[in-house]
Each structure stands twice: as C-alpha cells, then as structure tokens.
C-alpha cells in the first residue's frame, strides 16, 4: 500500500453570485494557488479529476469549459465526476494507490447563482415517485429535522446553537460567505429556519494529492490519507431511518475512523440537523472540534463544499493545528451518500 497525502489546498472566497466570472475564471486562481504552493507545473501533474454538475449551470458537458484552466492541451490524463469534488478526490486517490500516478490535481466548482438551487437539486431525485412532486432540498432536510426532533435527538434551540457556533467559528475563515451573528430567521420549511440552512453561493476549491516521498518533498507536513471510503443508503426516503446515517458509520469504519479519536472533524452538513445525525453516526464527543471552518453553514458552494471539508481538515494538519482529523462529504437528499476520510500528520503516525 502506498502512502498518499493531501499536500495543498485552496478555495475561493465564496459569494452569493459571481456573474462576471465564467467557470474557468472562477477556478483558475485556486488552480494556480495549489500549483504555486507545491511548485508543480500543470504538465507535471499525473492525473487530474474534477467534480461539478451540469444541472447547476443548465448546460450539458459544462465541465469541459473549465478544462482550459488546467492546460488540457497537449493531452493530459483527466476524469470528471458529476458529483461533489470529494468523490473526484476518491477517484484520484485510487489512481495513485494503483500506481498509475504519483500526483493528482483535484478540483471542483459550483455556481448556484444562475438557477434556483432548491428546485435544481430536486431533479436528482427518483423520477417515478419523487421528482414529479418537486420536493425541494430544504423540504427534504426539514422532514429529517422533524424526525430528529420527534426522536428526542435535538430541538429547535439546539439546532440554533449549531448554527450560531458554525457562523461564529466562520469569522476566522476569510473565505466564508455567511459569518458572525446570523439571525435564526423565520421558518423556511418548518422546523428549519433560514438560519438552519446554508447560504446559496458560488465557489471553487482545489487540492493536490501526492504519494510517499513526493508528498514529503512538496509539503512540510503532509496530511496523510490513512483511510477513505464512501457508502450509499437505500434510494427511497421512506425506507430509511432518517435519524441515523448507517452509510456514514460504515464508511467511517472502513476508513479506520474508530481506531483512535480525532481532534478535528470537518463534517459536510449543509443543514444544522444533519450535524446531529453525523455526530451520532461518527460517535463524536466533546473532545473533537467540529467544523472549525464554519462548515457548509458558512459556505456551501454545491459540488465543492465536500471537497472543501477534506481541504480544511488537511490544511489544519498542514498548519500543525491537528494531528488526526476526520473529513466527511455528502451528496444527495438527507445525507444519502457519504464519504469519510481519516487524515493524519506525520507526528501522529508513530
């Protein structure tokens, strides 16, 4: 088995809208930042993988427009997932583990501003029983929140505290879109208030992965990926216990998350209620710092927010602020698909 690490991470300052920027305009600064941090040239990267969604842009093959930013000519080894960039990172990790590359550039981006993201996301639902009813992303999260309240797992006050803690932590995050004292607001879909929901915005992120000694040469303190796994739940919401996330727990188990406690967890929980589910699934106690970046409640560029969780966790290891961190990404309604990675700094690997 090879050792693979995240050696660089960059993200945009996330904003409500970026009309003046095309996708490639949005991406190029973060691509240049991670390349600059490692000293790698675009043509030295072994594998490039990206995540995005055509439905956000409303155009087929929209990701091809972004490829100009990575210097795709002369030809490079490249792939794309129609999903959050966390899954692109997983593909790149596999590529490195199989020995087909020593370095990988992973990026993802999402501009939610052109459309109505609540409606756009409803098109990813089962087309027979769900999509014709147009249940929007907030409505589905609210059904999960009410199930948690009925089960006694949380209440509206506890949810508001999650929102307040996240936005307070985000004041130290220069890239966050929604920070500080954000009012709980009115019910958007009961029991979720506007404050329980993520901001809608545009943004991008990029990371560089590298194997073994290459990683050590590129980064003073690489964030080693000790384990990474992703799992999915049954498609039908009515089959699932919405108060739990067995797929997160299983992914975490396979990633080795339960072998030792982590000091940090970056959880991809766009809604306050989802943090409750994830804390339970991952068995997180008070000794784990959850979402010091502010999490997706502070910035939720769709398709990049999960990759940002991996990047934020890695960056804390790079800076020496964490020795062992969990990173989680989700996709689909009510935490349908979940990815968990365990990241460690060198000193923790005794």
């Amino acid at each position, binding site marked *: 088995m090879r050792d693979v690490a995240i050696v660089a991470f960059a993200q945009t300052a996330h904003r409500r809208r970026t009309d003046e920027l095309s996708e490639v305009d949005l991406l190029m600064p973060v691509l240049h930042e991670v390349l600059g941090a490692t000293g790698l040239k675009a043509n030295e990267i072994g594998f490039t993988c990206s995540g995005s969604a055509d439905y956000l842009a409303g155009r087929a093959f929209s990701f091809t427009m972004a490829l100009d930013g990575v210097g795709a000519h002369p030809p490079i080894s490249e792939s794309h997932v129609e999903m959050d960039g966390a899954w692109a990172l997983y593909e790149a990790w596999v590529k490195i583990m199989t020995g087909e590359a020593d370095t990988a550039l992973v990026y993802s981006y999402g501009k939610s501003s052109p459309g109505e993201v609540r409606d756009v996301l409803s098109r990813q639902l089962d087309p027979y029983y769900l999509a014709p009813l147009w249940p929007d992303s907030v409505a589905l999260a609210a059904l999960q929140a009410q199930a948690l309240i009925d089960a006694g797992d949380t209440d509206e006050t506890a949810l508001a505290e999650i929102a307040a803690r996240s936005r307070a932590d985000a004041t130290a995050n220069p890239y966050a879109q929604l920070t500080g004292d954000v009012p709980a607001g009115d019910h958007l879909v*009961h029991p979720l208030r506007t404050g329980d929901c993520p901001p809608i915005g545009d943004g991008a992120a990029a990371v560089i992965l590298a194997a073994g000694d290459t990683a050590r040469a590129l980064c003073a303190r690489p964030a080693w990926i000790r384990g990474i796994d992703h799992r999915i739940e049954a498609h039908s919401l009515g089959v699932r216990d919405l108060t739990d996330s067995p797929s997160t727990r299983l992914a975490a188990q396979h990633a080795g998350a339960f072998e030792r406690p982590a000091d940090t967890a970056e959880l991809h929980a766009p809604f306050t209620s989802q943090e409750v589910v994830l804390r339970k699934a991952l068995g997180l106690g008070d000794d784990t710092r959850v979402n010091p970046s502010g999490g997706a409640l502070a910035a939720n560029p769709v398709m990049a927010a999960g990759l940002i969780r991996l990047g934020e966790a890695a960056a804390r290891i790079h800076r020496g602020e964490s020795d062992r961190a969990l990173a989680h990404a989700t996709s689909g309604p009510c935490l349908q698909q979940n990815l968990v990675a365990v990241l460690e700094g060198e000193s923790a690997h005794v």
Partner: protein
Amino acid sequence: MTDVLSAPLVVEFPFTRSLGPVQSAFLTGLRERTVLGVRTDDGTVLVPPVEYDPVTASELRELVEVAATGTVTTWAWNPSPRRNQPLDTPFAWVLVRLDGAATALLHALDAPGPAAVHTGMRVRIRWAATRTGAITDIACFEPYDGEAGPGQPAPHEGEFADPVTGIAAPARLDYVHTPGRAQSAYLKALEGHRTVGERCPACRKVYVPPRGACPTCGIATEEEVEVGPRGTVTTFCIVNIKAKNLDIEVPYVYAHIALDGADLALHGRIAGIPYDQVRMGLRVEPVWAEGARHPDHYRPTGEPDADYDTYKELV
C-alpha cells in the same frame, strides 16, 4: 471591468421513462384508486414498491393491496409552495406509512396550518379528479379520523386493463446565464460586426472565440485582439442532410475558418460558390444579414488561395 451580458436560459424536457412490472402495477393502480405495495422475502411490505429489495437486492414481484389511510411518520410545514409542488396553498410535506405497509411514501398533506399537523396523525389519500397513472394521481393527503384500514394487506395480481407502461415527467428549470467577461466581450464585438479574440500572455496564441483561458498554458487570457474579417478555409465538409428548422438548401458546405490573426479556426457555412468548388486554402469573408448578431455565412473574397504552410498548424 467589461459589462457582463446575461440572458434567460430555460432548460425544459419531458423526461420520458418506461416502467418495470412493479412500478407499472403501482402507477396503474393509483389511476384505479388502488394502492399496491410489494412484499419482501421476510414479509415486509414496501410502499411505494420497488423491484429489488433495498436490503438483499433480491427480485420482488409479490404485490399486495394496502389501505388508502395511514399514519404520518415525519412532516415539514411548507409556508411558501414552489412551482409544480402538489398544492398551491401552504401545506405539509409528509412521509406517510399506509396501513399495511412498513415503509413510508412522500407526499403533501392539506392542512390549515402547522398546528394541525403532528407525527402520528391519521391521514387518508385525496385522489386527483383526473388520474393518468402517476404519483400525482394522489392529489394529496388529508386529515382522517375514521377507522384504520385492514391490518393485513391482501394479495393482488397487479393486473389492470390498459396498464400504464411509461411516464412523461415534464421538467422545466429557469436560469439566468452569464457567459463571463471574455465571451461577453466577444458577443458585444459581434454586434458591431467585429470579431475579437484574446491573446495568451505566455504562448502568444490568439483564441477565437475567447473563453478567458489558454488551454495550453492554463492561464488567463486578457489582451483583446481584433481578428479577420477575412480568413482561410482550413477544412470543410459537405452537408447532405437537411436539418429540422433550418432553412438552408442541401448540399451546403460547413467549414473551419481561420480568421486572419487567429490561432484557432472557428465554424461557419460557406456560400456564394458551388459546393463542389470549396477547397482548403480558400480565402473567405463574412456576410452579415440585416440585424444579425453573427455572420450568416462566409463567401469567397476572390483572392488567390492561401499557401498550405500558412494554415497547416490550424487544421
């Protein structure tokens, strides 16, 4: 900063899908006011039914009829219904476990307000007046305080006259598309019958239309360069199939044209010359129709053909 263009972009599609045996029976049943579930190997009844067991993946075909009454397992009050949602007045989203079923169905509940809704409340189906074999044949749920349905769901053959075998789920999403700085500048120049590209600061290539980045160097292009109006045919094809909604007689010629000063060929139609006389190296110029936002076609300039070496890198 150049002003950035924006325009409405509507993505609309019918999303036509065929149904398997279980979904066909379920949706046809709704048309006939009959709710069917499917029984798994361990006796669990799934509503809405699926063709494969979500736990064991074994094939499921044993249909049963469940009641049109049920219990709310979770809910969410929607004060501002959005376009296409089941009700246009405030309503509750609900997951309902129909009597006889072990799993829950998502739908809308018509209720006067959130105070009238709670988990565990009893509800029943309100059928749509016009039913076609779709999940929307259930107009919504409504509060119900009558008797519970039969405890044990009855076996059902799933056979109906004129079964529904497919659905057409229309979808429409509205966007406001903004093409960004480089393409906005390109489109604005076209309004003045000018074609502009952008030069890469590193490799000095001029890209037309500009997309804001050099695909070779992976860096931003910013220097605007006017190219053309004349250009050279680098390659072409003869189109013999008449396209729908296109008022051009076949055969016609579709070509790659390297405008003078550009390092990338763009596409255009060639006219004003018999189709079988178009050739690589032909010198052409744009022809604009009245009020058009892009050249209608390109025609020969009458100049001698360009030497192959002058455009071979652009073929």
